[in-house]
Protein backbone atom coordinates (compact mmCIF):
# COMPACT_ATOMS: atom_id res chain seq x y z
CA UNK A 1 0.00 0.00 0.00
CA UNK A 2 1.57 3.28 -0.97
CA UNK A 3 1.81 6.36 1.24
CA UNK A 4 -1.12 8.09 -0.45
CA UNK A 5 -3.45 5.20 0.32
CA UNK A 6 -2.07 4.91 3.84
CA UNK A 7 -2.62 8.60 4.51
CA UNK A 8 -6.13 8.53 3.07
CA UNK A 9 -6.98 5.46 5.13
CA UNK A 10 -5.63 6.98 8.33
CA UNK A 11 -7.48 10.25 7.80
CA UNK A 12 -10.71 8.48 6.91
CA UNK A 13 -10.43 6.24 9.96
CA UNK A 14 -9.69 9.18 12.19
CA UNK A 15 -12.60 11.20 10.90
CA UNK A 16 -14.95 8.20 11.11
CA UNK A 17 -13.97 7.57 14.70
CA UNK A 18 -14.26 11.24 15.58
CA UNK A 19 -17.70 11.55 14.01
CA UNK A 20 -18.99 8.43 15.77
CA UNK A 21 -17.18 8.98 19.05
CA UNK A 22 -19.29 9.37 22.19
CA UNK A 23 -20.69 12.88 22.22
CA UNK A 24 -21.98 14.66 25.28
CA UNK A 25 -25.73 14.52 24.76
CA UNK A 26 -26.28 18.02 26.10
CA UNK A 27 -23.66 19.40 23.75
CA UNK A 28 -25.24 17.47 20.94
CA UNK A 29 -28.63 18.94 21.73
CA UNK A 30 -27.23 22.41 22.08
CA UNK A 31 -25.53 22.53 18.75
CA UNK A 32 -26.82 19.80 16.49
CA UNK A 33 -29.86 21.53 15.06
CA UNK A 34 -31.80 18.25 15.31
CA UNK A 35 -35.43 18.84 16.16
CA UNK A 36 -36.11 17.59 19.68
CA UNK A 37 -38.93 15.16 20.27
CA UNK A 38 -41.75 16.57 22.40
CA UNK A 39 -42.16 15.85 26.08
CA UNK A 40 -44.04 12.56 26.55
CA UNK A 41 -47.21 12.39 28.67
CA UNK A 42 -49.17 9.61 30.32
CA UNK A 43 -52.82 9.15 29.42
CA UNK A 44 -53.92 10.96 32.58
CA UNK A 45 -51.99 14.05 31.59
CA UNK A 46 -48.97 13.60 33.85
CA UNK A 47 -45.56 14.25 32.40
CA UNK A 48 -43.67 11.02 31.75
CA UNK A 49 -40.25 11.64 33.27
CA UNK A 50 -38.72 8.44 31.88
CA UNK A 51 -38.85 6.36 28.69
CA UNK A 52 -42.02 6.31 26.63
CA UNK A 53 -43.77 2.91 26.55
CA UNK A 54 -41.86 0.56 24.30
CA UNK A 55 -38.70 2.61 24.44
CA UNK A 56 -35.55 2.52 26.55
CA UNK A 57 -33.09 5.01 27.87
CA UNK A 58 -31.95 6.83 30.97
CA UNK A 59 -30.86 10.25 32.15
CA UNK A 60 -27.13 10.78 31.87
CA UNK A 61 -26.54 12.62 35.12
CA UNK A 62 -22.75 12.64 34.95
CA UNK A 63 -22.20 16.39 34.75
CA UNK A 64 -23.77 19.50 36.17
CA UNK A 65 -22.92 22.58 38.16
CA UNK A 66 -25.19 24.53 40.45
CA UNK A 67 -23.41 27.81 39.68
CA UNK A 68 -22.17 29.40 36.49
CA UNK A 69 -24.03 29.74 33.20
CA UNK A 70 -21.52 27.95 30.98
CA UNK A 71 -22.07 24.52 29.46
CA UNK A 72 -25.35 23.04 30.66
CA UNK A 73 -25.75 25.59 33.46
CA UNK A 74 -29.07 27.40 33.65
CA UNK A 75 -29.19 30.96 32.44
CA UNK A 76 -30.39 32.03 35.88
CA UNK A 77 -27.44 30.51 37.78
CA UNK A 78 -25.35 32.61 40.10
CA UNK A 79 -21.69 33.10 39.40
CA UNK A 80 -19.38 31.69 42.05
CA UNK A 81 -18.70 35.06 43.70
CA UNK A 82 -22.44 35.57 44.15
CA UNK A 83 -23.00 32.44 46.21
CA UNK A 84 -24.04 33.57 49.72
CA UNK A 85 -21.50 31.50 51.63
CA UNK A 86 -20.98 31.98 55.30
CA UNK A 87 -17.28 32.64 55.79
CA UNK A 88 -16.50 29.21 57.21
CA UNK A 89 -18.33 27.50 54.36
CA UNK A 90 -16.42 29.44 51.72
CA UNK A 91 -13.15 28.62 53.47
CA UNK A 92 -14.07 24.96 53.63
CA UNK A 93 -15.04 24.87 49.95
CA UNK A 94 -11.75 26.46 48.96
CA UNK A 95 -9.86 24.02 51.17
CA UNK A 96 -11.62 21.06 49.58
CA UNK A 97 -10.88 22.46 46.13
CA UNK A 98 -7.21 22.94 47.00
CA UNK A 99 -6.91 19.25 47.81
CA UNK A 100 -8.41 18.20 44.47
CA UNK A 101 -11.10 16.09 46.04
CA UNK A 102 -8.78 14.04 48.24
CA UNK A 103 -11.34 14.08 51.03
CA UNK A 104 -14.42 13.39 48.90
CA UNK A 105 -16.52 10.73 50.67
CA UNK A 106 -18.00 9.55 47.37
CA UNK A 107 -14.51 8.63 46.19
CA UNK A 108 -14.54 6.18 49.10
CA UNK A 109 -17.87 4.81 47.93
CA UNK A 110 -20.11 6.70 50.31
CA UNK A 111 -23.58 7.48 48.87
CA UNK A 112 -24.09 10.49 46.63
CA UNK A 113 -26.40 12.55 48.81
CA UNK A 114 -28.10 15.82 47.96
CA UNK A 115 -27.55 17.15 44.47
CA UNK A 116 -24.58 14.80 44.06
CA UNK A 117 -27.22 12.21 43.20
CA UNK A 118 -27.51 13.98 39.86
CA UNK A 119 -23.78 14.36 39.15
CA UNK A 120 -22.53 10.76 39.14
CA UNK A 121 -21.89 8.23 36.38
CA UNK A 122 -23.97 5.21 35.39
CA UNK A 123 -27.33 6.75 34.63
CA UNK A 124 -30.67 7.45 36.27
CA UNK A 125 -34.21 6.18 35.77
CA UNK A 126 -37.40 7.63 37.27
CA UNK A 127 -40.19 5.26 38.21
CA UNK A 128 -43.56 6.93 38.78
CA UNK A 129 -46.22 4.98 40.68
CA UNK A 130 -49.16 7.37 41.14
CA UNK A 131 -51.39 4.50 42.31
CA UNK A 132 -48.96 4.06 45.22
CA UNK A 133 -48.45 7.81 45.73
CA UNK A 134 -44.72 7.44 45.30
CA UNK A 135 -41.91 7.92 42.86
CA UNK A 136 -38.46 6.35 42.79
CA UNK A 137 -35.25 7.82 41.43
CA UNK A 138 -33.04 4.86 40.65
CA UNK A 139 -29.36 5.57 40.11
CA UNK A 140 -26.96 3.24 38.35
CA UNK A 141 -24.29 4.55 40.69
CA UNK A 142 -24.17 1.83 43.34
CA UNK A 143 -27.86 1.21 42.69
CA UNK A 144 -28.66 4.06 45.05
CA UNK A 145 -32.30 5.09 45.05
CA UNK A 146 -34.46 7.83 46.46
CA UNK A 147 -38.12 7.47 47.36
CA UNK A 148 -40.32 10.50 46.82
CA UNK A 149 -43.55 10.41 48.85
CA UNK A 150 -46.37 11.82 46.70
CA UNK A 151 -49.37 11.57 49.04
CA UNK A 152 -51.39 14.80 48.88
CA UNK A 153 -50.84 16.79 52.07
CA UNK A 154 -47.92 14.67 53.19
CA UNK A 155 -45.58 16.46 55.60
CA UNK A 156 -42.08 15.77 56.85
CA UNK A 157 -41.73 14.08 60.24
CA UNK A 158 -40.97 16.36 63.19
CA UNK A 159 -37.32 17.32 63.27
CA UNK A 160 -36.63 15.33 66.42
CA UNK A 161 -38.02 12.19 64.74
CA UNK A 162 -35.94 12.51 61.61
CA UNK A 163 -32.95 10.20 61.32
CA UNK A 164 -30.35 12.19 59.37
CA UNK A 165 -29.59 10.27 56.19
CA UNK A 166 -27.70 10.63 52.91
CA UNK A 167 -30.83 11.13 50.83
CA UNK A 168 -33.13 12.73 53.41
CA UNK A 169 -36.93 12.66 53.63
CA UNK A 170 -38.48 13.66 50.29
CA UNK A 171 -42.00 14.87 49.58
CA UNK A 172 -43.13 15.58 46.05
CA UNK A 173 -45.97 17.19 44.13
CA UNK A 174 -46.71 18.53 40.70
CA UNK A 175 -46.85 22.19 39.82
CA UNK A 176 -48.25 22.03 36.33
CA UNK A 177 -45.70 20.07 34.33
CA UNK A 178 -42.92 20.46 36.90
CA UNK A 179 -42.22 17.90 39.58
CA UNK A 180 -41.27 19.60 42.82
CA UNK A 181 -39.39 17.61 45.48
CA UNK A 182 -38.87 18.99 48.97
CA UNK A 183 -36.23 17.27 51.10
CA UNK A 184 -34.96 17.68 54.66
CA UNK A 185 -33.18 15.43 57.14
CA UNK A 186 -29.74 15.14 55.60
CA UNK A 187 -26.66 13.97 57.44
CA UNK A 188 -23.30 15.69 56.95
CA UNK A 189 -21.33 12.67 55.71
CA UNK A 190 -21.34 13.53 52.03
CA UNK A 191 -20.49 16.37 49.67
CA UNK A 192 -23.78 17.65 48.35
CA UNK A 193 -22.32 18.18 44.88
CA UNK A 194 -19.08 17.45 43.04
CA UNK A 195 -16.37 19.85 44.12
CA UNK A 196 -17.30 19.94 47.79
CA UNK A 197 -19.91 22.66 48.28
CA UNK A 198 -20.49 22.51 52.07
CA UNK A 199 -23.75 21.84 53.83
CA UNK A 200 -25.01 21.19 57.36
CA UNK A 201 -27.84 19.22 58.98
CA UNK A 202 -30.04 22.23 58.33
CA UNK A 203 -29.94 21.62 54.59
CA UNK A 204 -33.35 21.92 52.94
CA UNK A 205 -33.45 21.26 49.20
CA UNK A 206 -36.32 22.14 46.88
CA UNK A 207 -35.74 20.47 43.51
CA UNK A 208 -37.72 21.18 40.35
CA UNK A 209 -37.72 18.77 37.45
CA UNK A 210 -39.11 20.01 34.15
CA UNK A 211 -38.84 17.87 31.04
CA UNK A 212 -38.33 20.51 28.37
CA UNK A 213 -38.45 17.94 25.58
CA UNK A 214 -37.93 14.21 25.27
CA UNK A 215 -34.17 14.52 25.55
CA UNK A 216 -33.73 17.32 28.07
CA UNK A 217 -34.55 17.65 31.75
CA UNK A 218 -34.25 21.03 33.43
CA UNK A 219 -33.00 20.46 36.98
CA UNK A 220 -33.24 23.43 39.31
CA UNK A 221 -32.54 23.30 43.04
CA UNK A 222 -32.97 25.82 45.83
CA UNK A 223 -30.43 25.39 48.63
CA UNK A 224 -31.67 26.60 51.97
CA UNK A 225 -29.08 25.92 54.70
CA UNK A 226 -28.91 28.45 57.52
CA UNK A 227 -25.81 26.72 58.85
CA UNK A 228 -23.68 27.27 55.74
CA UNK A 229 -25.24 30.09 53.68
CA UNK A 230 -26.55 33.52 54.59
CA UNK A 231 -29.69 33.08 52.49
CA UNK A 232 -31.33 30.53 50.20
CA UNK A 233 -29.99 30.40 46.69
CA UNK A 234 -30.90 28.62 43.48
CA UNK A 235 -29.06 27.01 40.60
CA UNK A 236 -29.22 24.08 38.21
CA UNK A 237 -28.40 22.57 34.87
CA UNK A 238 -29.79 20.63 31.91
CA UNK A 239 -29.65 16.83 32.02
CA UNK A 240 -29.56 14.89 28.73
CA UNK A 241 -31.46 11.70 27.90
CA UNK A 242 -29.39 8.79 26.59
CA UNK A 243 -30.59 5.88 24.47
CA UNK A 244 -27.43 3.75 24.41
CA UNK A 245 -25.92 1.83 27.31
CA UNK A 246 -23.31 3.52 29.45
CA UNK A 247 -20.60 1.76 27.46
CA UNK A 248 -22.19 3.13 24.27
CA UNK A 249 -23.41 -0.28 23.16
CA UNK A 250 -27.00 -0.65 21.98
CA UNK A 251 -29.61 -0.98 24.70
CA UNK A 252 -30.30 2.12 26.76
CA UNK A 253 -30.36 0.28 30.08
CA UNK A 254 -28.64 0.90 33.37
CA UNK A 255 -26.24 -1.85 34.35
CA UNK A 256 -24.82 -2.91 37.68
CA UNK A 257 -22.09 -0.80 39.22
CA UNK A 258 -20.81 -0.99 42.76
CA UNK A 259 -17.97 1.28 43.82
CA UNK A 260 -16.97 -1.04 46.65
CA UNK A 261 -16.40 -3.94 44.26
CA UNK A 262 -12.68 -3.35 43.79
CA UNK A 263 -12.12 0.06 45.30
CA UNK A 264 -8.38 0.76 45.67
CA UNK A 265 -8.22 4.54 45.70
CA UNK A 266 -8.97 5.09 49.37
CA UNK A 267 -5.78 3.31 50.39
CA UNK A 268 -3.87 5.80 48.26
CA UNK A 269 -5.79 8.69 49.76
CA UNK A 270 -4.91 7.42 53.25
CA UNK A 271 -1.22 7.30 52.36
CA UNK A 272 -1.30 10.87 51.12
CA UNK A 273 -3.28 12.12 54.12
CA UNK A 274 -0.94 10.35 56.53
CA UNK A 275 2.04 11.90 54.78
CA UNK A 276 0.59 15.33 55.53
CA UNK A 277 0.73 14.76 59.24
Amino acid at each position, binding site marked *: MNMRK*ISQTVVAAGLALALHAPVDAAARQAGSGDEARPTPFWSDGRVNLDAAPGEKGFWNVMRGSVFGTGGTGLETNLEFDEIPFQDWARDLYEYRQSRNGLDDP*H*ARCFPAGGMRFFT*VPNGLNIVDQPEMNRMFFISGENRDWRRIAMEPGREHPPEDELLPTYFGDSIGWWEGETLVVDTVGFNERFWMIRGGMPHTRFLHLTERFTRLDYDTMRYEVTIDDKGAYTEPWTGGWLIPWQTVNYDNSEGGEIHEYFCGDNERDSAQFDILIEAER
Partner: protein
Amino acid sequence: MVPGDSTMKRLKYGFVAVGIVAIAGVLVAPLAAHHSFSAQYDSNQPVSLRGAVTKVEWMNPHVYFYIDVRNEESGRTENWALEMGAPAVIQRNGWRQNTMKIGDVVLVEGTRARSGELLANARSVTMASNGERLGAGSSENVTP
Protein backbone atom coordinates in the same frame (compact mmCIF):
# COMPACT_ATOMS: atom_id res chain seq x y z
CA MET B 1 0.19 25.91 -9.94
CA VAL B 2 1.06 22.27 -9.41
CA PRO B 3 2.58 21.50 -5.99
CA GLY B 4 6.17 20.31 -6.18
CA ASP B 5 7.36 16.96 -4.80
CA SER B 6 8.52 18.41 -1.46
CA THR B 7 5.17 20.14 -0.97
CA MET B 8 3.30 16.95 -1.78
CA LYS B 9 5.44 15.03 0.71
CA ARG B 10 4.63 17.58 3.44
CA LEU B 11 0.93 17.34 2.56
CA LYS B 12 1.00 13.52 2.69
CA TYR B 13 2.70 13.41 6.07
CA GLY B 14 0.47 16.22 7.25
CA PHE B 15 -2.61 14.15 6.36
CA VAL B 16 -1.14 11.15 8.12
CA ALA B 17 -0.30 13.27 11.17
CA VAL B 18 -3.81 14.72 11.26
CA GLY B 19 -5.30 11.26 10.96
CA ILE B 20 -3.15 9.86 13.74
CA VAL B 21 -3.94 12.82 15.98
CA ALA B 22 -7.66 12.39 15.24
CA ILE B 23 -7.52 8.68 16.11
CA ALA B 24 -5.36 9.23 19.18
CA GLY B 25 -7.61 12.04 20.33
CA VAL B 26 -10.62 9.72 20.19
CA LEU B 27 -8.93 6.72 21.74
CA VAL B 28 -7.46 8.59 24.69
CA ALA B 29 -10.28 11.12 25.19
CA PRO B 30 -10.66 11.85 28.91
CA LEU B 31 -13.70 10.21 30.36
CA ALA B 32 -15.75 10.77 33.46
CA ALA B 33 -14.75 9.42 36.91
CA HIS B 34 -16.28 9.24 40.31
CA HIS B 35 -13.37 11.05 41.88
CA SER B 36 -10.60 13.48 41.12
CA PHE B 37 -7.60 12.31 39.15
CA SER B 38 -5.22 14.95 40.40
CA ALA B 39 -5.78 14.08 44.07
CA GLN B 40 -4.13 10.74 43.46
CA TYR B 41 -1.90 11.09 40.42
CA ASP B 42 0.80 13.60 39.52
CA SER B 43 0.62 14.90 35.95
CA ASN B 44 4.26 15.95 36.30
CA GLN B 45 5.32 12.32 36.63
CA PRO B 46 4.55 10.62 33.33
CA VAL B 47 5.62 7.01 33.02
CA SER B 48 6.24 4.68 30.12
CA LEU B 49 6.29 1.05 31.20
CA ARG B 50 6.85 -2.15 29.25
CA GLY B 51 6.20 -5.54 30.71
CA ALA B 52 4.27 -8.78 30.75
CA VAL B 53 0.77 -8.87 32.19
CA THR B 54 0.51 -10.85 35.43
CA LYS B 55 -3.07 -10.13 36.45
CA VAL B 56 -6.21 -8.39 35.21
CA GLU B 57 -9.04 -7.25 37.52
CA TRP B 58 -12.03 -6.47 35.30
CA MET B 59 -14.16 -4.83 37.98
CA ASN B 60 -15.78 -1.58 39.04
CA PRO B 61 -15.01 1.16 39.90
CA HIS B 62 -11.71 0.79 38.00
CA VAL B 63 -10.18 -1.96 35.93
CA TYR B 64 -6.70 -2.75 37.25
CA PHE B 65 -4.00 -4.77 35.59
CA TYR B 66 -0.52 -5.63 36.74
CA ILE B 67 2.72 -6.01 34.77
CA ASP B 68 6.24 -7.13 35.59
CA VAL B 69 8.66 -4.37 34.63
CA ARG B 70 12.42 -4.61 34.67
CA ASN B 71 13.99 -1.76 36.61
CA GLU B 72 16.96 -0.85 34.44
CA GLU B 73 18.86 0.72 37.35
CA SER B 74 18.54 -2.07 39.87
CA GLY B 75 18.07 -4.93 37.47
CA ARG B 76 15.14 -6.14 39.56
CA THR B 77 11.72 -7.01 38.27
CA GLU B 78 9.01 -4.86 39.78
CA ASN B 79 5.27 -5.52 39.63
CA TRP B 80 3.39 -2.37 38.71
CA ALA B 81 -0.34 -1.78 39.17
CA LEU B 82 -2.10 0.17 36.42
CA GLU B 83 -5.50 1.78 36.90
CA MET B 84 -7.92 2.29 34.01
CA GLY B 85 -11.47 3.50 33.82
CA ALA B 86 -14.55 1.50 34.77
CA PRO B 87 -15.36 -1.47 32.50
CA ALA B 88 -18.33 0.31 30.92
CA VAL B 89 -16.16 3.32 30.19
CA ILE B 90 -13.20 1.54 28.58
CA GLN B 91 -15.51 -0.69 26.57
CA ARG B 92 -16.32 2.46 24.61
CA ASN B 93 -12.66 2.42 23.59
CA GLY B 94 -12.86 -1.13 22.31
CA TRP B 95 -11.72 -2.99 25.41
CA ARG B 96 -13.20 -6.36 26.28
CA GLN B 97 -12.51 -8.63 29.24
CA ASN B 98 -10.21 -10.81 27.17
CA THR B 99 -8.39 -8.04 25.28
CA MET B 100 -5.39 -8.44 27.55
CA LYS B 101 -4.26 -11.85 28.74
CA ILE B 102 -1.74 -13.08 31.28
CA GLY B 103 1.66 -13.07 29.63
CA ASP B 104 0.85 -10.44 26.99
CA VAL B 105 3.61 -7.88 26.68
CA VAL B 106 2.27 -4.34 26.72
CA LEU B 107 3.56 -0.79 26.62
CA VAL B 108 1.72 1.53 28.98
CA GLU B 109 1.76 5.33 28.89
CA GLY B 110 0.47 6.85 32.09
CA THR B 111 0.85 9.02 35.15
CA ARG B 112 2.44 7.92 38.40
CA ALA B 113 0.67 7.91 41.75
CA ARG B 114 1.60 10.67 44.15
CA SER B 115 2.13 8.11 46.90
CA GLY B 116 5.29 6.90 45.18
CA GLU B 117 4.05 3.33 45.04
CA LEU B 118 4.40 1.18 41.95
CA LEU B 119 1.05 2.44 40.71
CA ALA B 120 0.09 4.54 37.71
CA ASN B 121 -3.04 5.72 35.96
CA ALA B 122 -2.91 4.41 32.41
CA ARG B 123 -3.66 6.72 29.51
CA SER B 124 -3.03 4.18 26.78
CA VAL B 125 -2.00 0.56 26.36
CA THR B 126 -0.21 -0.78 23.28
CA MET B 127 -0.07 -4.50 22.63
CA ALA B 128 3.47 -5.55 21.71
CA SER B 129 2.15 -8.48 19.68
CA ASN B 130 0.22 -6.48 17.10
CA GLY B 131 0.83 -2.81 17.89
CA GLU B 132 -2.84 -2.23 18.73
CA ARG B 133 -3.19 0.83 20.95
CA LEU B 134 -6.23 1.44 23.14
CA GLY B 135 -7.15 4.37 25.35
CA ALA B 136 -7.50 3.48 29.02
CA GLY B 137 -10.37 5.73 30.04
CA SER B 138 -8.18 7.98 32.14
CA SER B 139 -9.93 10.78 33.99
CA GLU B 140 -6.88 13.04 33.69
CA ASN B 141 -7.93 16.58 32.71
CA VAL B 142 -11.53 15.93 33.77
CA THR B 143 -12.94 18.42 36.25
CA PRO B 144 -13.93 16.49 39.38
